[in-house]
């Protein structure tokens, strides 16, 4: 496996662990559809949450949370809709972002951004 994919996998594991610690129920990992992929699908109480995980090592120009542009968001929304439809989910759902940065001194910073579409029309 290439380095960057390994890093991605490592990040997702980290994120999953954090969510489980928060008491969320993990429903799936790396669920892929034709149009895109959902890194983690979880339940936050009554709400279904699609989580996108971004992992970066220090030194990249952009922080991880900035690397999700409108195109990526649209893809996520489309994938989320597929998932909701397939699993006959009728409650509210949202898309979260977990940004993981490996800093110079090997420190790992995890940030959670809930509801990144925020009512936008995607």
């Amino acid at each position: 496996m290439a380095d960057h994919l390994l890093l991605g996998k490592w990040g997702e594991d980290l994120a999953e662990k954090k969510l489980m610690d928060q008491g969320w129920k993990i429903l799936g990992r790396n669920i892929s559809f034709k149009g895109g992929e959902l890194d983690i699908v979880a339940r936050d109480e009554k709400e279904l949450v699609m989580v996108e995980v971004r992992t970066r090592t220090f030194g990249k120009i952009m922080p991880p949370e900035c690397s999700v542009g409108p195109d990526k968001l649209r893809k996520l929304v489309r994938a989320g809709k597929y998932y909701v439809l397939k699993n006959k989910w009728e409650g509210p759902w949202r898309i979260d972002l977990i940004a993981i940065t490996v800093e110079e001194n090997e420190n790992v910073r995890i940030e959670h951004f809930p509801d990144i579409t925020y009512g936008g029309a995607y």
Partner: protein
Amino acid sequence: MNAVLGVTLKGVDAIKVEVEVEITGGLFAISIVGLPDAAVRESKERVRAALRTLGIPIRGRVAVNLAPADLPKEGALLDLPIAVGMAKSTGALRFSRPSVFMGELALDGRLRAVRGAVPAAIMAREKGLDLFIPEDNAHEVSLVHGVNAFKVPDLRSLIDYFRGDLELQRVKNDFKADQQKKIEPDFSDIKGQAAAKRALEIAAAGHHNVLLIGSPGSGKTLLARALRGILPPLSDEELMEVMLVRSTVGISSSRGRERPFRPIHHTASAVAICGGGTNLRPGEISMAHRGVLFLDEFTEFRRDLLESLRQPLEDGEIVVSRSAGSVTYPAQVLLAVACNPCPCGWFGDPVEQCRCSSNDIERYQKKLSGPILDRIDLYVPVPRLTPEELLSLEGKCGESSEAIRERVCRARSLQLERWSDIGSGSNSELPEKILRTRLGLSREARSFLGSVAGTLKLSGRGISRVLKVSRTIADLDSSVEISTAHISEALAYRQTGFLS
């Protein structure tokens, strides 16, 4: 189930708007239907942010319906009912009495003042509804008697109130019109101009429209401004009407019982004067309701502007028709008009030389006729006093506005009493039929008028104008009969050309 109610304005009336909210599953989105304008559509951002700060997160797909569906809704005043509607459908609050909410939300949940609080209060009173208003609107609402209104500082207190954790302050009906302040300029500040002052006193007493003609610098504008100071203070009912218009425009402060004075410039647009615009608003003529509307440089006004003023002057209200619907605003004004005697302004001035040809002047004076001038009862020439004349008046200051106002009030109350059965408050509004029969013209005055009508070539309209004005002069005299002297004074205020 109690519907959440808001209001939207139609003219100076508040129309009840029912806010229905449905939240279903899905990715978060808010859609508002029911002809919202841009301000209402944007309210979703404010509402969600405000609710979130309060710890009421909104999830899923939110549909907001504003009923009735065919009435255009406008303004930020629907923020609060939408927020309450959402909070209610998430189960965050419940209430038992039908209530009307109004207010614009800040992102942190504070409430900002909105326009239309007075109309909303009147509507709430009529329908027996509770009213929740922003704190800043409380002053104007305190004017409306018998409404059950609550001051809401922010969204959190409102929710706490419904949960029973907090009492909201009721709006008390303690509207106190501030003590009438001294209105500047005072009549005693104006040197000379005895004739114009007297004419304005008559105008104020009988609600006669007035035209001031004079050279630049003669003091026309000053006199017109002072006119407000001698009008009787607003009655409770009139104050209510004035506040209704002010509230509709979004001015919540009050000037007490002082009558409005609205000067309009000739470059103003028809919309600014008559009201209208994409989201209908009252214009200057409605802002001057129960007060003075002042048109300076009258001859510069475009013909279509003057045309559009004619109907409101006749009816005392203005109907504005737009694609968004037609609304009626009140427009009972005392019209004061000022203009120069000729294009350059110096005609008849003893010092400055007029450079206008007589053709210019003739053309100019032709402009001084037409629909608006027909409604003017008093023509008041305002001479520009020469330095010598001013000096000769040094040390003599005339009566104060207050002394004149007292006479005006007395004359007004005489009129109110006399015309109470025909529903007219002033001499200027008298119908023709009454003029001929109930004026109290003395025998000598009648024959005097008959004899001069021929030599002065008075038209039918001219005669009724003289009669109305002389009735007011008699009222100022507290005289039951109109005497010859009253008539002859009225004759001095007719339109008289200086050229022909």
